[in-house]
């Protein structure tokens, strides 16, 4: 047994069995799924919770007096409570349910930022961001005349902390940054940065889409103002997301969208908005999806995020080491603190070609710019191949990746 195998233990193999989709062949080979950073697979318990809801409890929430509506509401609101506990928010009123990280960030950009900023104000982001944490801010800047400022990264794909500090000036209205880079896997020292922003009274939004699935998150300990994440990256259904926000900030923000459920009283003279968090949840929500996220939280808590993080770190380190041993390998993203993701280029083979050749050996990876074109530009490349591990991967998956890459080298030799 190798050292990595010993460190990983038997737990990852047990967890893998919880994910039925992984037990299949693709192109005649056992599937190796290394694209969890794009979307993670769902454990049987999530699939069952969603199916059970559709089979037994479906009705609209917050509306009916009948039994099914009551059950649906209980399950939906129960999931909100689970999510609150999972990230340790102090109140369920601070958990706004959205369609995903993208909507969560747009909500903050439009409801928190847009009414309050103008020419002379700055919105600070970093060079590492996913497009979802760039474009909503560009829109606000176009709408208000505020200026978008970008904190630089170094050749390893790490934030240049001194430069970031220097950019935290009084005219910065908000700092929006990722917890973990989806393209490079860099884990940013967000707690430290939030503390420095707080000293200058600068609100901070953390894009936690790639953080939540891989490590324990405590929003009170982080002391951030907003934390946005998606259900489908944490083993829940697509079309679900969360915006954690401080209650005092949510109270002062106007609604993001108007419609049913977000009101207390409507007349043609005006409308009284509903209490938090419903003020920000217009229309019938993704009820089954949110129930699925609740089940995903149960699943992750039954394992414990500390164990998930420790197991994935072993896998990630093994992947980095194994990839490094291939001649012609260029790792993109070599930060000291990384999780889950490794981007790379092999010889001069285009990532798209690598993706096809790997798929033909049953190995699923992501290729291209990963919705982070500025990161690619920073490294002078158009895209990378990206492998990302989650709790259900094992060392054999990494070995299969390496083997498939060697085959690609043979084809292009």
């Amino acid at each position, binding site marked *: 047994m190798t050292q990595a195998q010993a460190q990983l233990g038997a737990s990852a193999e047990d967890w893998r069995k919880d994910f039925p989709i992984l037990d299949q062949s693709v192109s005649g080979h056992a599937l190796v799924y290394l694209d969890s950073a794009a979307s993670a697979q769902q454990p049987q318990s999530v699939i069952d919770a969603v199916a059970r809801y559709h089979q037994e409890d479906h009705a609209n929430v917050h509306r009916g007096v009948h039994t099914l509506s009551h059950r649906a509401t209980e399950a939906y609101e129960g999931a909100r409570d689970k999510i609150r506990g999972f990230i340790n928010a102090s109140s369920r009123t601070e958990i706004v349910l959205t369609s995903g990280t993208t909507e969560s960030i747009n909500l903050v950009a439009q409801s928190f930022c847009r009414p309050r900023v103008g020419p002379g104000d700055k919105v600070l982001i970093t060079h590492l961001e996913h497009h979802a944490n760039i474009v909503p801010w560009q829109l606000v800047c176009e709408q208000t005349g505020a200026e978008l400022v970008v904190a630089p990264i170094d050749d390893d794909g790490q934030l240049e902390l001194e430069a970031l500090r220097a950019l935290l000036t009084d005219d910065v209205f908000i700092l929006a940054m990722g917890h973990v880079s989806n393209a490079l896997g860099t884990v940013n020292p967000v707690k430290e940065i939030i503390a420095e922003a707080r000293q200058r009274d600068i609100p901070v939004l953390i894009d936690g889409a790639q953080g939540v699935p891989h490590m324990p998150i405590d929003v009170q300990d982080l002391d951030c103002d907003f934390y946005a994440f998606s259900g489908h990256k944490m083993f829940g259904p697509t079309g679900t997301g969360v915006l954690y926000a401080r209650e005092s900030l949510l109270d002062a923000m106007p609604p993001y969208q108007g419609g049913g459920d977000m009101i207390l009283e409507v007349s043609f003279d005006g409308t009284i908005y509903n209490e938090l968090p419903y003020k920000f949840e217009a229309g019938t929500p993704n009820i089954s999806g949110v129930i699925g996220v609740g089940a995903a939280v149960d699943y992750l808590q039954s394992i414990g995020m500390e164990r998930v993080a420790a197991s994935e770190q072993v896998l990630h380190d093994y992947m980095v080491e194994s990839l490094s041993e291939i001649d012609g390998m260029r790792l993109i993203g070599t930060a000291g603190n990384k999780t889950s993701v490794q981007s790379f280029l092999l010889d001069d083979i*285009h990532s798209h070609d690598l993706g096809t050749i790997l798929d*033909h050996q049953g190995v699923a990876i992501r290729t*291209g710019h990963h919705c982070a074109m500025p990161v690619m530009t920073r490294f002078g490349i*158009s895209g990378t191949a990206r492998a990302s591990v989650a709790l259900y991967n094992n060392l054999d998956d990494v070995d299969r990746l390496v083997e498939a890459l060697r085959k690609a080298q043979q*084809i*292009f030799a």
Partner: protein
Amino acid sequence: MNQQSDDLRELYRELILDHARSPRHFGRLEHATHQAAGINPLCGDKLRLYLQVDADNRIEDTSFEGTGCAISVASASLLTDTIIGQPVDKAEAYFESITKRLTHGEPAELDQNLEKLRALDGVREFPSRVKCATLAWHALHSALNQQEEPATTE
């Protein structure tokens, strides 16, 4: 397993790899009369196709530049080889038959001049890669029709 391997070999034929490694007519054309960009939004690949059309509506010269996967670069390179010296209306007809052949699998009658392009047929087994193979051809269509917007495969 072998079938799968054969599909890959079919996709990455020697001719495709050769054109990908050493693309013909690569670079900018100084006196282009027509040009268009092709963008594949899926992967962010971009190429620009240049045409120099003479008074008799013949493609006197052509070139392309940009970055892309082996399939898109090889296809662009084969395109330039195919259309150089051809009348504009023939090039437009080539666009029609190649995109139909690769996108819809229609066994369009291939002009003798298009025989080489059979090398691209392998992409038909790879739906996600058809767009790579047709990108340059869409750019050709845009350039001939003097469209301002970059061609995309969407």
